[in-house]
């Protein structure tokens, strides 16, 4: 056995590295190869999507968000506050199990690291459960009411169907819509419906919906920034079944040793249970910065909408936010003076008089909005 022959043995581990790396990186790509589907126009696809209806579904949803948000010290919060939850959902990766049965049964379980948060409703009552704190919150829902809407709030951000619909509602001349191809999502063949903003005021490059070719349910939404090729937000099913889940799926029996709190029954609209993953107005397309003190005002429309919040006391106390802002760029205009906080998708302008402008828009658009905004 010569030296050359012996050194050839090292080809085995080298091939093993190549194989493992190959399977790890290319495996998903090969598995998600574009399926062959009959051509369809964007309009047809849109129509199908809007009429899509399922009696029930269950599956696993994976979301990953990389908005390029700076890690705001002290603002990241826990899951205690809704704002903390939203911030959390807008960063990193999350997995949730979702189930839905028409008309009003729904369940969302966010699979946290060694913990789980559950929201479930069987149409009569709604439960929120946090395994970390072992606390359950029960809501008795008002009867004789098409109660489907409020309870579905919870799964909304996890349900690509709802997210997609919100985009579809916003479709107007500001947006170019086309079918950009096909792909496999959650093992199903899907069309890719692409929405591209026509304005260059927004930081959104495009939004793509993967629409199931059989049920016409959106299976995945991805938002691409104007710059770069990696999605800033991607939320979609990793597996999905359109069988109607059994009623027991939505039932919740408070376990022994778990503290149950029962807020007063809501009259018209139930309080959003503690720790809800997100509220609709916190959608990235609305560009709202969460955790603000005042009622926000939306300025402008479409892709270049800017949210304004007044009377925000963020600065002046020498806290971590101050330190953070100290590093931000200072801008000045007819509207006054302030700091611009930029990220991959979300930009914000914090003026010295306590107004915050934020949106999925360019910094210049923020300044223009500030100039036009009422004081």
């Amino acid at each position, binding site marked *: *056995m*010569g*030296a050359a022959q*012996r050194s050839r043995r090292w080809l085995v581990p080298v091939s093993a590295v190549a194989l493992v790396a190959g399977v790890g990186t290319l495996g998903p790509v090969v598995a998600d190869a574009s399926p062959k589907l009959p051509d369809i126009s964007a309009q047809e696809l849109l129509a199908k999507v809007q009429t899509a209806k399922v009696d029930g579904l269950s599956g696993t949803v994976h979301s990953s968000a990389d908005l390029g948000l700076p890690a705001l010290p002290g603002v990241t919060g826990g899951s205690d506050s809704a704002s903390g939850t939203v911030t959390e959902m807008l960063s990193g990766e999350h997995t949730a199990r979702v189930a839905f049965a028409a008309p009003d049964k729904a369940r969302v379980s966010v699979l946290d690291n060694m913990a789980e948060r559950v929201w479930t409703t069987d149409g009569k009552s709604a439960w929120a459960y946090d395994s970390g704190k072992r606390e359950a919150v029960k809501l008795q829902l008002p009867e004789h009411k098409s109660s489907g809407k409020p309870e579905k709030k919870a799964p909304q951000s996890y349900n690509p169907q709802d997210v997609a619909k919100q985009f579809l509602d916003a479709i107007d001349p500001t947006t170019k819509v086309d079918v950009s191809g096909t792909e496999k999502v959650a093992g199903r063949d899907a069309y890719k419906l692409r929405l591209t903003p026509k304005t260059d005021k927004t930081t959104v490059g495009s939004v793509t919906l993967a629409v199931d070719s059989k049920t016409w349910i959106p299976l995945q939404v991805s938002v691409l920034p104007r710059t770069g090729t990696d999605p800033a937000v991607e939320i979609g099913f990793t597996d999905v079944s359109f069988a109607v889940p059994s009623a027991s799926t939505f039932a919740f029996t408070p376990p022994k040793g778990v503290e149950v709190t029962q807020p007063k029954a809501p009259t018209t609209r139930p309080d959003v249970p503690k720790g809800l993953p997100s509220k609709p107005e916190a959608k990235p397309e609305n560009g709202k910065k969460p955790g603000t003190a005042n009622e926000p005002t939306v300025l402008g429309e479409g892709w270049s909408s800017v949210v304004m919040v007044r009377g925000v006391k963020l600065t002046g106390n020498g806290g971590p936010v101050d330190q953070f802002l100290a590093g931000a760029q200072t801008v000045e205009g007819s509207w006054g003076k302030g700091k611009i906080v930029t990220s991959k998708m979300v930009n914000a302008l914090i003026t010295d008089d306590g107004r915050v402008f934020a949106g999925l828009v360019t910094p210049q658009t923020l300044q223009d909005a500030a100039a036009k905004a009422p004081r």
Partner: protein
Amino acid sequence: MTETTGSPLVTRGLTKRFRGGQVAVDAVDLEVPAGSVFGFLGPNGSGKTTTIRMVLGLIAPTSGEVELLGQPMPKAQLQVLPRVGALVEGPAFYPFWSGVANLLRFDAADRTADPRTRKVRAGEALERVGLSNAAGKKVRAYSLGMKQRLAIAVALMQRRDLLVLDEPTNGLDPQGTREVRNLIRELADDGTTIFTSTHLLAEVEQVCTHAAVMSRGRLIRQSSMAELRSELRPRLVVRTPDVTKAAETLKSLGVTDLRTVGETVEGDAGELPIDKFAAGLVAADVRIHGFGLERPSLEEAFVALTGEGFDVAE
């Protein structure tokens, strides 16, 4: 897998060059006859152990070939090595285990070894090397001599066609050395070929039928002991107080390679008649205290071959 012909151990051009460029073994051609007790001689560091490691497939030769029991090494090692008992470079054991537990482990490593007879064979092997009483003792508590015996016991766990023993008497007391030599003779009588390295000439003189000499990585000589002995030419040795005069006289009488050590003058008398020298010395008035021919020892012969001293102390 029977080979009735050929040598159990053959090397051809066996060479090992270490990474530093140092040549430890340089083109060694060994041929060990079947049934022989083959003494592999050489001073420490002459390449004996490196050769043995290559023979057993522990290290890969830089070039050259090894044939063990008629099959190429290391390619056929799994077929060949079960029939070869080996002791390489000192005893190595698990100190936290008993002697017998060590034997059982090494036997278990050989997939041809029958597990049903393993304990019996271990007992027999321990008895042969005289370790029965210490079988249950932890090897940690063994003396070097006991470890050496245990190592030989490993080689004796099975019927072997060839034993490759590297310094088998190292660390043994005179009694143990004698026992090992007897064991080697006994095994050889049973037909096992024995290849034993040593730096002790006495061992070779007493038990070997063949010998090879290594020096600085090279094989200087290999032949049967009978042949070696016959080649050793007797030397004329004169003991006298008149060394200078004696040397001059012998030189004039045609004796070559003269050397004077103390009161002794010796030289190579070649084919010349010995009585002629005696007469010549007497005629020259040299006082003679002793006179005769002496056959040199193997040691002297090997010193002459290798140019290095052997460690003869025991």
